[in-house]
């Protein structure tokens, strides 16, 4: 379904009244709009920082030119564009209908005749694309919309001239969608990627439509690309006589040699099925029904009158929920299944409202300087188990605010509000309610923990108050905290936990001879140990490696001890060990390994990077390599001034997370100070932050449209002499 507009979205663009959001991506947002004449359009608006990039603007100009050049009944026409506007945009005709991907996912494979008709119409679309001198390069089921009067090929975002174009993306770079790419694209042979690549992709798309499966299977992008280059397509199920003409056609489209593939015009000519004239008769009943459902959903949008839509209609893209479902494929059952179980078997959710009703009102005295100007807040654990991190963050933010206020050209004086939740989720919700109730607070940096972030985020969300989370790593923070809703206020300045597995897998694979690493998942750490272990197994195996997995329940430290499991892993012949668990467990494991004389590589994840580890493990901790998402500013040249200022203010060096918090505050004060006419409203700040970039003292910052961190941000430490030596950023995988 189409999503409603957000507060920061424009209400009109290029003569279109905007009705909702169809989707968002790295380049910007696509809106559903209506022209003055009442026609619906998909309006793509480029995001602000890209609009300021001359190279990107040139690229967008080319995309519009390319799309305008294609004239076919089966491609979506451009109805308007302004590539020179402050926020460039392009409008195309809106095709009401599900994508082919959604239709097949929900309704199953299409009958052979429908596939041939689809083939013929898309061959005509490709003929027009190629006649315009372009290669589409991203022909896939998601990019074919099933409109009431026939299919439409969309999205010329990565199309490029067939030859002689400026190379925007270098040789060796794979663009497009693995599983639907031609071998020459999969190998990154940009120069060899011509119109025939689109024919191969069309073959993949048609095979998918006919069988319900991509012809090179599913799995990781690497596996897909490998199979595309080396394996024969899987056309099983198309062996019967009724499929014979289609199967023969697909085999030719899917030839490894581009020269052996038919041209789109030849496909059009050899298919004898008649192209229906503006009807849905060629589609199975289920698909037509799906189109009608989409039409009904569209009618639920504000400002769309039923009378204005005469034919079956629906938004061009499935809604967020469905996207999630599709993205995860078979996980649909996981979602529905678990939800149903918990809804049915449990007592419901009796959690009381932790907002501290009654004390949630404005509390202007709360730690502020009383200046009456705009405020930013630190919400941290300053007195509980995470106080080291919380205090370091407060100090980092304080230094950034002082620096801002000391600027001679500071447009206003910022004051700082501090809330301590002691690491307690209930208190975190109360603290968040207080900050939310103080209208002078424009942004919050914190909280410190996953558990406190989970209870605080809903408060900030309700108040449209930007929450800049520096240290929480929970991968599913927003989805869990907001019960499926996307957050509009969350900005995360670190990669989530799962990304910490990548350097571990890289290290394991990069050893002189990838051997037989053991991976010990300790459920004492809950979901974080699980995502780490799972992804390490997946990454290592996808590269042809082997792992020795072990999983232990919570409580091993207090019950059985780790001796048995470590002995079993060593007896199995492991030559490296990854421990995905907490610091105290790591210490016990380290002692067992040392006692057994094991000297192979030993790795731990961020929770192990805690003084508890070397304290309890002693000598046995020496040489462990730990992966983290925070830096040691003392070891960073770019942080020299910050470290000096910190020393001066606090008499000691900054602790973990201080530099990241300083960067987070810098992002916030820049956004606040950059708006002409004074600081922006609360609701405007998070979108500004999400579009911002920063060369910080700890690392470079960029964000995805959903507020997650989009930069490189994993670092390695080694235990040496009872302390942690910063080794620098984890190397990008080879």
């Amino acid at each position, binding site marked *: 379904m189409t999503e409603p507009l957000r507060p920061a979205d424009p209400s009109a663009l290029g003569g279109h009244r905007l009705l909702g959001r169809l989707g968002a991506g790295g380049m910007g947002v696509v809106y559903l709009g209506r022209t003055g004449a009442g026609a619906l359009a998909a309006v793509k608006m480029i995001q602000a920082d890209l609009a300021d990039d001359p190279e990107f603007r040139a690229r967008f100009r080319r995309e519009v030119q390319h799309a305008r050049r294609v004239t076919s009944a089966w491609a979506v026409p451009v109805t308007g564009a302004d590539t020179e506007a402050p926020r460039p945009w392009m409008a195309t005709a809106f095709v009401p209908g599900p994508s082919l991907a959604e239709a097949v996912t929900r309704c199953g494979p299409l009958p052979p005749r429908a596939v041939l008709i689809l083939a013929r119409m898309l061959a005509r679309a490709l003929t027009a694309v190629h006649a315009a001198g372009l290669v589409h390069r991203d022909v896939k089921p998601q990019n074919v919309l099933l409109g009431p009067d026939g299919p439409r090929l969309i999205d010329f975002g990565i199309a490029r001239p067939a030859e002689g174009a400026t190379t925007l993306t270098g040789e060796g770079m794979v663009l497009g969608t693995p599983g639907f790419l031609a071998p020459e694209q999969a190998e990154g042979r940009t120069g060899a990627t011509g119109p025939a690549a689109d024919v191969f992709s069309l073959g993949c798309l048609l095979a998918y439509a006919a069988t319900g499966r991509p012809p090179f299977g599913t799995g990781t992008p690497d596996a897909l690309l490998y199979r595309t280059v080396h394996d024969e397509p899987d056309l099983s199920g198309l062996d019967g006589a009724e499929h014979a003409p289609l199967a023969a056609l697909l085999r030719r489209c899917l030839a490894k040699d581009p020269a052996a593939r038919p041209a789109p015009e030849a496909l059009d000519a050899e298919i004898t099925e008649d192209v229906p004239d503006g009807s849905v008769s060629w589609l199975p009943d289920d698909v037509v029904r799906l189109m009608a459902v989409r039409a009904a959903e569209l009618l639920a949008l504000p400002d769309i009158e039923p009378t204005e839509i005469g034919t079956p209609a629906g938004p061009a893209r499935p809604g967020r929920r469905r996207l999630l479902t599709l993205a995860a494929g078979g996980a649909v059952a996981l979602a529905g299944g678990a939800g149903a179980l918990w809804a049915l078997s449990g*007592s419901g959710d009796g959690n009381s409202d932790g907002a501290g009703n009654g004390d949630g009102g404005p509390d202007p005295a709360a730690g502020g300087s009383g200046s009456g100007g705009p405020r930013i807040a630190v919400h941290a654990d300053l007195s509980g188990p995470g106080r080291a991190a919380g205090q370091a963050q407060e100090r980092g933010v304080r230094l950034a605010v002082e620096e801002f206020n000391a600027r001679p050209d500071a447009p206003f004086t910022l004051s700082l509000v501090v809330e301590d939740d002691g690491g307690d989720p209930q208190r975190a919700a109360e603290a968040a309610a207080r900050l939310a109730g103080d209208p002078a607070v424009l942004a919050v940096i914190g909280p410190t923990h996953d558990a406190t972030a989970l209870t605080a985020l809903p408060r900030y969300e309700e108040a449209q108050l930007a929450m800049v989370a520096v240290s929480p790593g929970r991968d599913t923070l927003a*989805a869990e905290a907001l*019960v499926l809703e996307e957050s509009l206020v969350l900005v995360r300045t670190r990669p989530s936990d799962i990304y910490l597995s990548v350097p571990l897998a890289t290290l394991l694979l990069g050893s002189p001879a990838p051997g037989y690493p053991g991976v010990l998942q300790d459920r004492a750490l809950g979901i974080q140990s699980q995502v780490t272990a799972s992804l390490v197994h997946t990454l290592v195996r996808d590269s042809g490696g082997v792992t020795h997995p072990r999983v232990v329940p919570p409580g091993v430290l207090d019950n059985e001890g780790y001796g048995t499991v470590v002995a079993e892993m060593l007896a199995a012949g492991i030559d490296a060990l990854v421990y995905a668990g907490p610091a105290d467990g790591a210490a016990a494991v380290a002692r067992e390994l040392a006692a057994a004389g094991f000297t192979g590589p030993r790795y731990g994840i961020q929770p192990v990077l805690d003084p508890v580890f070397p304290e309890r493990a002693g000598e046995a901790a020496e040489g462990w390599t730990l992966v983290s998402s925070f830096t040691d500013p003392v070891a960073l040249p770019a942080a020299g001034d910050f470290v000096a200022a910190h020393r001066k203010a606090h008499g000691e060096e900054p602790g973990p997370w201080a530099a990241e918090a300083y960067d987070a505050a810098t992002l916030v004060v820049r956004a606040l100070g950059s708006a002409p006419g004074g600081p922006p409203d609360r609701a405007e700040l998070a979108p500004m932050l999400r579009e911002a970039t920063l060369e910080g003292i700890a690392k470079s910052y960029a964000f995805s449209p959903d507020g997650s961190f989009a930069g490189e941000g994993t670092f390695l430490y080694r235990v040496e002499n009872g302390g942690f030596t910063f080794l620098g950023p984890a190397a990008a995988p080879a």
Partner: protein
Amino acid sequence: MTFRRAGGRLRPRAVAAVALSLLLTAACTAGADDGAPADPESPAAESEPEPEPEETGGGGPGADGAYDFVLDPAKAPATAAEAAGLVDRVAPAPENFGPGYVVRDPAEDDPGEWAVLGEDCVWRRAPVPDGVLASLTRYTELPAADGRGAVQAAMVITVHRDVRGAQWEMARTIEDAQRCPEQQLRQNEWVRGLTSMGQERGTLGNRTTEDALQEFGEFYPDAAGPYPYHWFRIRIGPVTVAFSAKGGAGRTQEEVTEGPLNALVDTTTRLEAELGAEEAATGGGEDDA
């Protein structure tokens, strides 16, 4: 030969993104705003998340508000005979799976045996070890109809001598999927691409059971498939309850899951009644917003 391509540095991030989408999908369970066939109130969709559980062993009830089952240790079976009686009382009948489900032959297995995944990733029956008092498997199916294949389901109820034994079984189940993403179920039955997801209480929407884990994958009987495959195990004190559900031609994931899930809920409810302390189960769920 190892395959490496020039753009390979994108790969781990892409894999992580896929894994993440999986997690997010699991997180969707928190909402249960659809796919919950019999929960008219569905208050979960509006309500607050739980704080993380204490990340230690048992985790006392009530620590996170919603899950209020309290095990009465005196009610936990102490002997194989008591355990066999318990599993027999709580095990589901075909009607617990839903309309159309029928008994398979055999209808159940010897409670003195359970299934073990070998080094070779093949499942075999073996006598239960010392720490297990009983393990009953009941088999049902939704027969093939209207051109669609059968859905085959099994419910496994395992009673351990103590809670710790059941906790280890949960850990071992995750380990099994990591060790063997491809498993042979029977002579001519395989699952491939297995992914397991542990959801201890407070995680990814799990509010109502101490520990849960799910696996899904692709089911291949003989030369056919892939069809949906779903495995779901939860723990209540010293007892684990799991279903496995295998799809057939034309069956959607939802169809495959729905019946076994109903039966799992029924079984769990009976188990909680058998093992729970008296004053437990004062349901929350009122609108507190």
